[in-house]
């Protein structure tokens, strides 16, 4: 049939659609960042033009930076996210391996039990969680957040990872067993490296809600010491409702660290996804 599977019009069409969507995806982010560098008059007078030397103004940033401790909030967010992510991936992969690899009594029941958490928002349990944290003295500590986020991330991690672990070839694992490897070695040395791409996917899905969560920092750790970036940004926005320079600068400050982290991290992520595909 036609050899023109990659014909020119088709390629142009694909690029046109992708470019349009990219513009839609980036436009709000760009417009917020661009305007955060302008004076108040220019923000309203010409919102769509980039800052010129005439309209360039850092007043928003000086207001915001004068008010708070963004670097400290950022550290808190980083600690919470990285620690929760580590525990979710480790515990999640271990449980997923047990469920997908071994037949034992109660296997599917256990799978169902762990999957319950995908459908139930942990938020519904907030009051009882708060009581628990008060009783154990963990209120206003990052540990409380790490515990909650680990519990929150585990169900989806187990669900997705066990789907992928079912696809790891049995022959490989049995070969390992014949060579006398322990079950732990088989898991850590044979299976984990093979499911690394799906771990990257799970990592992204786990990380985003943790980093962006407003609810639990507000309820479990609202103190100045333990504030996360999201909570800090929310408070700024509440304070400066009519100060557009400050709002735009605060939004930009909240966007930029995540954006930089993401650009660094996404190479790894995309390489992980593509190299993981069976090719």
């Amino acid at each position: 049939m036609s050899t023109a599977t990659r014909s020119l019009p088709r390629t142009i069409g694909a690029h046109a659609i992708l470019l349009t969507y990219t513009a839609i995806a980036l436009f709000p982010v760009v417009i917020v960042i661009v305007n955060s560098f302008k004076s108040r008059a220019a923000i309203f007078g010409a919102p769509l033009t980039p800052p010129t030397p005439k309209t360039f103004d850092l007043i928003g940033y000086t207001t915001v930076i004068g008010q708070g401790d963004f670097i400290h909030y950022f550290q808190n967010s980083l600690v919470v996210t990285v620690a929760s992510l580590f525990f979710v991936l480790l515990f999640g992969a271990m449980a997923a391996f047990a469920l997908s690899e071994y037949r034992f009594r109660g296997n599917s029941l256990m799978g169902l039990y762990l999957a319950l958490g995908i459908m139930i928002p942990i938020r519904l349990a907030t009051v009882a969680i708060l009581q628990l944290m008060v009783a154990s003295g963990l209120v206003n500590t990052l540990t409380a957040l790490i515990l909650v986020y680990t519990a929150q991330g585990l169900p989806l991690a187990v669900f997705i990872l066990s789907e992928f672990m079912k696809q790891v070839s049995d022959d490989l694992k049995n070969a390992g067993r014949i060579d006398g490897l322990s079950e732990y070695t088989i898991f850590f040395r044979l299976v984990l490296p093979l499911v690394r791409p799906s771990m990257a996917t799970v990592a992204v899905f786990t990380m985003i809600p943790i980093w962006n969560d407003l609810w639990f920092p507000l309820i479990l750790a609202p103190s100045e010491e333990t504030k996360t970036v999201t909570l800090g940004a929310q408070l700024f926005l509440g304070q400066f409702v009519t100060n557009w320079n400050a709002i735009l600068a605060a939004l930009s400050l909240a966007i930029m660290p995540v954006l930089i982290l993401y650009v660094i991290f996404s190479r790894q992520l995309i390489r992980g996804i593509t190299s993981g595909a069976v090719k």
Partner: protein
Amino acid sequence: MAAAPKRPFRWHIGVFLAPAVLVYTAIMILPLAGTLQLSLFRNINQSQVFVGLENFRMLFGDPNWSVNFWNALRNNVWFFIIHMLVQNPIGVLLAALLSSPRLRFSAFYRTAIFVPTILSFVIVGFAWKLILSPLWGVAPNLMDLVGLKSLFTPWLGKEQYALTTLSLISVWQFVGIPMMLIYAALLSIPDEVIEAAECDGITGMSQFWKIKLPLILPSIGIISILTFVGNFNAFDLIYTAQGALAGPNYSTDILGTFLYRAFFGFQLQVGDPNMGAAIATMMFLIILGGVCVYLFLVQTRLRRYQF
């Protein structure tokens, strides 16, 4: 497999399962059970009294509660329908385009389109509120460029448009998730299958519909159920953009914001943990229903393809 007839107790299974099960049970399941239990009680004279299903009778029948409840449920269904009709098809389309071989800049597109998903609701809600605000004029200016300025209205402020606008903002934010999942699924289709299809003369669009789409159906099932669960838990975007009152006039109220108001109180109304728990229980049952439909009707009919 020739295993020994009597195996010793396999401790490693317990070791693999224990950390996840312990954390999950202590931090999630037990507090959740406590919350569900609360829905059967009511605070009378400073003590919790068992009242059976009385809270639910109030939720469905008492006009103080039921008007808001049915309104929130209706809005939530519409919120979900928009996601299914807009977000997931766009996600599949983008993934299909991205996965075509020899496409230039695909890493750039992938990275860029996923950007909104990594942003916090706080940022998304505020940024869109500013953009759509008639005060700032970004949206009317843009529409002026294509000659549609007359169509502009403050969408977030009008009862008939606000919910749809917020749904589309949420779609804008989360389209990256179906895109990434479908993209990964498309890449995992082996070359041999595609080559065989090409040998049979199936290329381009028909290759997508006849070969690739059936192979990625399990992933589409997964993104559908993830969308369902996510939408019926949604709260943050509405809260940051419209506040706890989900204005204008409750037109953007969904179950999450309704729960929040009932649970923690707002303005003159005092928070009622027991009614909050009753609403939480209803959300739980709705979500459970959706997941059961997925597990028993959808997933059992999809063959798992193993390569």
